[in-house]
């Protein structure tokens, strides 16, 4: 089929050409890709999408390589090309003689930058292995700083009479200002966004808006000061992502993902179509020498640059870049719409040969996108370059990766070598100690990464299970906790997906009823009086402990799910529910998933009997603990000693009595009606 041969970007350009031709044929003036539309509206979504979903681990591992390619490579390209073009111009006679060195250098700097849009468009389709992808893509993102500096530098210089050494040095310094300034702006906005997301638990609907808004503001602010907007955008996306994802609801996360993908797709399409239209519409000035030599030297510069830099970089890399890799990197240096727009911005007064530049740039863009874009896929297959492995990250990988990280950090410390891992470890520690506390709401801030990852996986599996309708077919190999977690989760998810069929609902109700039944039986023999009696105190404390743990577990799970604030009014539930006691626990709307224990309402104690409605795991009751619990599929509450120091940060050994007192308190007076709150992390009341 056509799309397997021709990359999408090419087709879009062709469509643009056709549309432009059509419009011109009708006699109208076709619209040209105006630079400010491009830079303000079309480019940011693509960059934000790339930055937000940047695979950070690979990116930082290869950061040195990427930076060298981006900075040194682009500089080399610019100067080499500019210099050579100047020579060509001087040599080629009267038509080109008047183009000065600076103009040529400017031209070189515009066209030397690898374009992220084009790279993304082509590389996405060939599924190349991650290393190469991140190298070329990272380079295309980071070279924006160089391009911006060079562009403005040469543009300014072209107006000067004399260019002094001081100017050059200042220009060199301005590079650092632009790039680091851009990153700085991005980081600030990222932090602000993360901080904002900490408080959005009550207004879940507009959470995605903050992500988009702050990122765009970062971009605009950076562009305002002539800093690198692209770097700001990427920095803000990268910085805000871990914290925002910890804070926002699952739905918001999905929204953000799909909106970003949608916008970037639309932008990309528009960009390529406009390129096609502008080609037809623009004023062109074709000069064979100039254009052909530009094309030629572009390719040579790229290849030479990659070769020399790789030779240099390979001395420092552990995983070396093979010649195959180098070829792909060189071949993947596509130019795109950024170059076109930058040239379009040039002022006619100072640069009379702008049209010629434009023509040359368009030719190069067409060549790289069409020729290189189309042939890269067969070449990749021919050279048998390693393709991307489409594996989902398993918990094994996560554990072992962390393990190896710690191991390597330890070894590095023994060697006294402040390597890669050492700094990464320091950053992680700083992150855990200070930053996470500020930027992540509530309990999540203390959650180790491993646990968070695990929860994510469990939840994903639970949702998949529900969607595939396989409630009854829970694999037996999954641990008991997982089973328990999946089961109750089907209920809140049920509300999220109202499409669950009738018989599934019936199944769920049946499961719950059975569970409830069991606990009810259990509690018949338990009444208030037994609480006071000493022999049961021990068992009671254990029960409290287990409840606490179950609660914590449940809370952490439920943090990911958006649960509407209203109570579920299934008949089983309302029958079970009588009152509640917020003194002991804050009952939540979603807590009805787990079986509810009620104290027999006919208890002699008080008419308004307070029941301990909560997610009491099955198997908890003030009864002789061990034999009963053993055969219950409870939340894996293997009864050990009540608490061992360090396993439960809520219950300390001394808490036994206060907990006990609390229970007595709660049984003697009814508490105020419960206020369910959605998604609020449970903070256990003071001991």
């Amino acid at each position: 089929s056509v799309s397997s041969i021709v990359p999408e970007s090419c087709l879009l350009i062709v469509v643009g050409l056709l549309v432009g031709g059509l419009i011109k044929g009708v006699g109208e003036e076709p619209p040209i890709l105006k630079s400010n539309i491009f830079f303000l509206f079309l480019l940011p979504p693509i960059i934000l999408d790339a930055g937000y979903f940047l695979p950070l681990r690979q990116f930082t591992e290869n950061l040195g390589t990427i930076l060298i390619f981006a900075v040194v490579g682009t500089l080399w390209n610019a100067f080499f090309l500019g210099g050579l073009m100047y020579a060509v111009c001087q040599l080629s006679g009267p038509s080109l003689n008047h183009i000065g060195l600076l103009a040529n250098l400017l031209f070189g700097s515009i066209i030397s930058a690898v374009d992220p849009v084009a790279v993304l468009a082509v590389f996405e389709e060939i599924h190349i292995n991650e290393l190469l992808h991140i190298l070329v893509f990272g380079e295309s993102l980071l070279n924006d700083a160089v391009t911006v500096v060079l562009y403005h530098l040469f543009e300014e210089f072209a107006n000067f009479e004399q260019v002094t050494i001081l100017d050059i040095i200042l220009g060199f310094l301005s590079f650092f200002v632009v790039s680091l300034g851009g990153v700085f702006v991005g980081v600030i906005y990222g932090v602000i966004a993360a901080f904002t997301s900490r408080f959005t638990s009550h207004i879940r609907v507009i959470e995605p808006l903050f992500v988009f808004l702050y990122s765009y503001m970062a971009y605009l602010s950076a562009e305002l000061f002539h800093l690198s907007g692209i770097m700001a955008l990427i920095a803000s996306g990268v910085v805000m992502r871990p914290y925002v994802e910890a804070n926002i609801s699952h739905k918001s996360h999905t929204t953000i993902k799909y909106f970003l993908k949608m916008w970037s797709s639309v932008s990309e399409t528009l960009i390529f179509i406009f390129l096609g239209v502008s080609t037809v519409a623009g004023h062109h000035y074709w000069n064979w020498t100039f254009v052909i030599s530009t094309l030629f030297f572009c390719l040579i510069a790229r290849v030479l640059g990659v070769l020399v830099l790789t030779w240099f970089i390979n001395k420092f890399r552990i995983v070396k870049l093979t010649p195959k890799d180098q070829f792909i990197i060189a071949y993947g240096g596509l130019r795109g719409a950024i170059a076109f727009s930058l040239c379009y911005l040039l002022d006619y007064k100072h640069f009379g040969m702008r049209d010629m530049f434009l023509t040359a740039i368009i030719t190069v863009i067409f060549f790289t996108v069409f020729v290189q874009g189309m042939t890269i896929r067969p070449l990749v297959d021919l050279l048998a370059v390693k393709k991307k492995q489409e594996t989902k990250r398993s918990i094994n990988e996560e554990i072992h990766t962390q393990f190896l990280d710690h191991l390597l950090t330890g070894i590095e410390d023994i060697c006294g070598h402040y390597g890669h891992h050492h700094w990464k470890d320091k950053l992680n520690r700083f992150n855990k100690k200070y930053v996470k506390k500020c930027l992540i709401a509530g309990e999540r801030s203390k959650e180790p990464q491993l646990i968070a990852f695990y929860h994510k996986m469990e939840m994903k599996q639970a949702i998949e299970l529900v969607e595939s309708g396989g409630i009854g077919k829970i694999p037996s190999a999954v641990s008991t906790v997982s089973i328990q977690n999946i089961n109750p989760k089907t209920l809140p998810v049920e509300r999220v997906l109202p499409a669950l069929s009738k018989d599934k609902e019936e199944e769920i109700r049946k499961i719950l009823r059975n569970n409830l039944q069991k606990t009810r039986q259990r509690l018949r023999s338990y009444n208030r009086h037994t609480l006071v009696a000493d022999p049961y105190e021990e068992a009671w404390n254990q029960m409290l402990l287990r409840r606490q743990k179950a609660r914590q577990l449940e809370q952490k799970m439920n943090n990911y799910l958006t649960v509407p604030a209203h109570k579920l009014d299934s008949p089983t539930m309302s029958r079970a529910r009588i009152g509640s006691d917020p003194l002991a626990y804050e009952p939540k709307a979603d807590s009805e998933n787990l079986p509810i224990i009620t104290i027999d309402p006919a208890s002699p104690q008080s008419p308004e009997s307070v029941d301990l409605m909560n997610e009491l795991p099955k198997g908890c009751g003030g009864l002789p603990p061990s034999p009963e619990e053993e055969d219950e599929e409870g939340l894996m509450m293997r009864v050990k000693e009540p608490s061992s120091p360090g396993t439960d940060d809520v219950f300390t050994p001394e808490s036994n009595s206060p907990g006990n007192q609390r229970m007595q308190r709660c049984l003697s007076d009814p508490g105020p009606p419960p206020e369910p709150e959605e998604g609020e992390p449970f903070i256990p009341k003071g001991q």
Partner: protein
Amino acid sequence: SVSHSQITRLYSRFTSLDKGENGTLSREDFQRIPELAINPLGDRIINAFFPEGEDQVNFRGFMRTLAHFRPIEDNEKSKDQDGPEPLNSRSNKLHFAFRLYDLDKDDKISRDELLQVLRMMVGVNISDEQLGSIADRTIQEADQDGDSAISFAEFVKV
């Protein structure tokens, strides 16, 4: 093998760590390294340096263990498989890591050993049950021969 400059550097590090100046390192010398103290796997790494039952490691042993972590040289890759595998080959590195998990040296990572490592990495705030379920899931994912433990072959595959 290891380059000359690397050896010199490691030797100077060795001597700076060796406070007793008797040419060997004891466990306390390692524990004096501050970053190692906060590394969750610190103790295990230290133990890996000391051969069975001994309490001192000389420079040769020090180097030998560290040599595991040298990057793989190109010429060694093309060496044929006849001779003993170079110390820093990928499988030896993985074996080293595996040994850090597998304390009782039965060539399997059992659920308990996994739990211990998880506990060390995760800290004290997580309940045992949660860790247990994570360990179960991990074993379930990696275990292919159904023995509820991770053997070295399965470990390598991950």
